Each structure stands twice: as C-alpha cells, then as structure tokens.
C-alpha cells in the first residue's frame, strides 16, 4: 500500500477576520463567520451558531477534524439541505450538533443503524456518520462490520482519540498498550483494534486513515470518501488532551499533534534521529501506522443491489 495522499504546505488561503481585544461575543462570531477557508462565506459557513459555545476542550482535535469536513463539504455542496449527519454518543458524536444540516444525534454505538435506515429510505441524501472509537468500535463494533459488509453508500468518519473522553477518560478498544486511563491504572494490557484494517476485512470499499495533525490531507481524503460509491470509512486520529494527554503526561495539544506526526510511517522516516515523545522511557508509545487511502475498490452497493438506485449512478 502506498500513500496516495501527500502532505502539502498550507495553500494561500485567506485568514479569518482579526478581532480587537475589546471585541464582544457578536464580533467574535462575525469574525468567525468570515472566510477562513476556501468556499466559506457568511452564507456558506455550515455552522449552527445557536449551539455555540461548543463543548470541546482546549487542545482537542475534534474541532480541527470538523473544520476540515466542512471545508470538503463546501467544495461539494452549496447547502447542506440534503446532507444528513448521523452520530452516536461521545465527544466526537457531539460535533454534528454544530453543523447546519439535518443532524441526528442517536444512541451510544448505533449511529450506523439509524444511518442505514435513513439511507435506504432516502438514497438521494448524502449521509455522513460521525462516530468515535468507543462508539464505533466497542459498543457499536458489530454495526460497523455489518455496514461495511453491506457496502451501503455511507461515509463514516471515526474520530479515534484512543480513550473515552465524555465519560472521563476510561479505557477504549483503541487505547495503545501500556497507556494509562482511569480504568487501566496499571497501564492497558489489551491489544487495540486496527479500525481501518477491520473495516477493510469486513468489506468496506473505501478505507483510509488520517490525522488531525494534517488537516489538508484529511480534507482531501474525506472528499474522496464522500465521492466514493459504497461504504467509505475514514479513521482520523485526533487527540484528547484532557484525559489521554494529561493522564499519560504527553504534554499539551501541540505536543500531542507532534506525537501524531511521529506515528506516521512517512514522517517517521524523515525525522529519524530526532528526539521523539515516543522515546521517553515508561511512557506509552503510539504505534507507527500507515496513513492515507489504504483500500479502494468498487463493488455493488446495497442500494444498487436492492434496486433503490440505478447501478453505477
């Protein structure tokens, strides 16, 4: 498998409006509405300001991921009237509430089941599922492999922060070996799932892994996932600073982003010989993983097989 998405330097994008120190909340929102990325405008920001302030912690990677998703959507859609976001329970799942679309915040682990019903009822809708590593791989793991097996035309983004954030930092099925959590006080002794490979083995036809560290790559991958016909799965590594970072003394949000960089096969090669967070003794080590599109193939989708949409449409 080769990396077919490469890091690029930041494009020449207009920066968001600056805000004077004495700015009031309205001014901050007005500045936030200003163009900070291509395609954004006051009319096309896709954010639901009534839901603000958001509940994400300082340094959390989820907002970065959501921002990249909205950028990709802005490149594909004028409005999100026909885009439905379906999410489960957890920090990652809460981000759909901030999107000005049809948003469905379901039960813990089950967003893919709701999304399956919705997609079969309305195959014309773009249905994006947002789930987390606990939501999608632990309590909802069975639904994930079945959605992949069916090759239903959903785009599922799994935010992997390697921990249960919303409930206060407990062990996840993705927690790396040795890592401390509130329910693994002596360090995790279980092997984590490789979510992307699991979905590929189950029959998903677009499987990718990305990082909140490299948002432009994630944006491109997410756009390709949206365009793909069939079950698209993007695992995106993001950071929980408050629980994973703090409990494992991995530093702040920036430090964690750096450790993401070192967990990428390609970057790790370039940085050989330089100090790394992974080399601190007695600290958990993030495994070095392949990033990018890991698998892409075409086979009949569930909707095509059921005759709900024309084959190849």
């Amino acid at each position, binding site marked *: 498998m080769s990396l077919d998405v490469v890091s690029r330097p930041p494009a020449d994008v207009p920066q968001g409006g600056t805000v004077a120190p004495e700015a009031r909340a309205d001014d901050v929102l007005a500045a936030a509405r200003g163009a900070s990325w291509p395609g954004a405008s006051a009319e096309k920001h896709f954010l639901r300001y009534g839901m603000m302030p958001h509940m994400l912690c300082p340094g959390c990677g989820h907002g970065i991921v959501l921002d990249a998703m909205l950028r990709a959507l802005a490149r594909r859609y004028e409005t999100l*009237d026909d885009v*439905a976001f*379906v999410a489960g329970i957890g920090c990652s799942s809460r981000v759909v*509430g901030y999107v000005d679309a049809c948003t469905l915040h379901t039960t813990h682990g*089950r967003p893919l*089941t709701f999304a399956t*019903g919705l997609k079969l*009822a309305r195959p014309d809708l773009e249905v994006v599922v947002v789930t987390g590593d606990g939501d999608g791989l632990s309590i909802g793991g069975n639904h994930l492999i*079945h959605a992949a097996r069916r090759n239903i035309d959903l785009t599922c983004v799994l935010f992997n922060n390697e921990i249960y954030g919303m409930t206060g930092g407990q062990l996840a099925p993705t927690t790396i070996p040795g890592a401390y959590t509130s329910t693994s006080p002596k360090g995790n002794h279980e092997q984590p799932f490789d979510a992307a490979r699991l979905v590929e083995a189950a029959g998903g036809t677009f499987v990718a892994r990305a990082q909140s560290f490299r948002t432009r790559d994630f944006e491109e991958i997410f756009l390709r996932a949206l365009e793909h016909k069939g079950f698209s799965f993007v695992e995106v590594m993001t950071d929980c600073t408050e629980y994973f970072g703090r409990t494992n003394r991995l530093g702040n949000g920036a430090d964690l982003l750096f450790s993401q960089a070192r967990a990428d096969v390609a970057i790790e090669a370039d940085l050989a010989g330089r100090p790394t967070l992974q080399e601190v003794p007695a600290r958990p080590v993030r495994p070095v993983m392949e990033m990018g599109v890991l698998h892409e193939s075409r086979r009949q989708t569930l909707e095509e097989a*059921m005759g709900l949409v024309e084959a190849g449409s």
Partner: protein
Amino acid sequence: MSERQLTQGNEACARAALAAGCTFFGGYPISPSSEIAEHLARELPKRGGVFIQMEDELASMGAVLGASLGGRRAMTATSGPGFTLMQEHLGYASLAEIPCVVVDVMRGGPSTGLPTSPAQGDVMQARWGSHGDRATIAVAPGSVQEVYTLTIEAFRLAETLRTPVAVLYDEVIGHMREGVVLHEPTSEELGLRSGPRGPFSPDFLPYEPDEKGVARVPDFGRGYRFHVTGLMHDERGYPTSDHAKVEQLLARLERKVDAAVDAVAPELYRLEDAKIVVVAYGIVARTARAAVDALRAEGVPAGLLRTRLLWPIPAAALADAIGHADLVVVAEMNRGQWAFEVERLAGRHVQLAPYLKAGGSVITAEELVAHVLRVSTKGARV
C-alpha cells in the same frame, strides 16, 4: 376487499402494515414473529418498499427510526428477547418523537423462555422496559381480524402522535388462522403525520408542539435543517438541562398519548348488571367470554371487560366497569402484570381474585369458570 379470507395472525399483521402504507421494515428473525418479516420480505420490494434484515434488534430499531425520519412509515416485529433489546431505541423514539410501530408476538419468558408457546409476559416491559418515565402506547388485539384493524390503528396513532406504538399479541393469535376481512383503510383510518407549519427559516422550531401536543418535526431532506437528539431538548431541538423545560417536555409527551384512550375503546360484554367482572385481553379474552356465558347460564351475574389498549391504561372505562362489582377477576398469561394496575385503580371495597397462568398454555374457559365459582363462594380476597 370485503369477503373473508383465511389468514394467519402474523400474515394479517403484515398485510395490515402494507394497507397502512408501511414502506420500511427492519427486523431480525425471532419466533414466533418471523412470518411477519417473511411476508414483508416478499411483498415490500414489489411495492417500492424497503425490507432489510439487520444484524440484531438494536440495529433493527435504529434502522426503523432512521427510515421514519426519512419520511417512511416504518415498523419492526419481534418477540420478548428482541423487544428487550429494542427498549433503548423505543425510549429514544418517544423522546425524539419519531413515529414507528413495533409488533411483539409474546412468548414465554424470562430469557429465551418458551420460544413457541404463548404468553402475555411483556405487558410491563411495553410500559416500563426503557429507562426513565416514558409515555407509551400499546394495543392488544384479541383475534386475527383485530390484529389487522389494530395494526392499521397502531400506524395511525404512531404517525399522528409521533410516538412508538407497540402491538402486543401472543403466539396463539400470531399462528392461528381465521376468516378475516382485509379492508382497505380510509384516509381517516390512516392519519397524517404531524409536520411543520411553514417553510424553513433560521428560527424554525421543530419541537414546537401543535394543538394536540405533538412536535412538528419535518422529515429529513425536505429543505429543513434541524437537530434531533436523545438528550432533553428545547423547542429548537437543542440540548437543554433547564429543569422547567424538561418537566414541561415530559408532561407533554405523557399527555399526548392519552389520545389513544378514546381511539381504542374496550369491549364491554354483559356488564350492565354484572357483579363479577372478568378483565382480560388478547387470546385470554376469548376464553373469558366463553366463561362469562357459562357463568351466566348458571345464574352467576358475570361480565367481561376486554381491553384492546394496555397503555395508556383506560382508567375511566375500567373504573366504570369495576366500580359496582363485588368481585374482579383479571385473567392473564403472566404473573399478574395488568392485574397490579387494575388493583391500583380499584376501590378498596372491590374484591380482587386474579387468575394467572405463565406456564405456556392458554387459560381455558373451564378453569376460569371454576376459579370464579371457587372465589365467589369463598368470598375471600385471594
């Protein structure tokens, strides 16, 4: 179609769903309900509908709710163990006000229990199976014909009140064949889903109730952008922990299901001068009716209240029927689930002597007659 057709209970249920405009079924096989899924697997795709067998009952209910939000009339069918797994999403549907119909063909429980024997053990599960104070509707047909009419009515109640409606009947009714008139429902019998008042605007309120206390939630993908959540929410659909708003929401959800009480009235049989009132539902009501006739032939002033609605409990009709009775006999195939409710509503002067059977066989008229004669001559509260 007005001539009678020999139809199995589960088939009548499936045909009623089709007549009621159901175009989505998501389910998981389980005895003794599987014939419903099998019939709809054949028939739905022919009519532009969607049938999907999901990976489990949690997924089935999730798919049903997703499809319902997509604008479909959606249902599932199951039995006790599956109904247990569906409870979380039934709670979700109640709170988020997503219409759906769930058929529970009851078998002996708890646990795997008696997979192919009749029971009425899911009455309380239908009421309290999901956590929290959930308002709910559950109908209980007593014949194959009534499986047909009450399934259609379940869809009407679900759509017009935007709430899950359970159809509870036992294995005998599910597998029995009777002559049934499979009529085409009128538009009144079908009902319309509550929806938004005007076009989308930024201050659109999907959870603003209409005059019946039902949220005006639109279907997804119709030009309305809004949020649906299982968290307590305000009229915008946004999460809230405002105590007053939460109290208000729970009270409204409880109030709105009361409409079912008038819509699904009980059958009153020989109650005018009855001093002994038998209360029953489902298959037991049929043998109870025969028991009442046998008791009357012996000169015993017995009557029957056959409820077709388990939840919300038809309290007024029940109070009327048992208010002047000397003896009330709730007969049911469980350890006393509805009997406790009747006891709660009965005055202190009323003697109660429930006849309960949970071993997997139907209560016969003969044993019910014997029970009534025994307790009425003893005069004791049993």
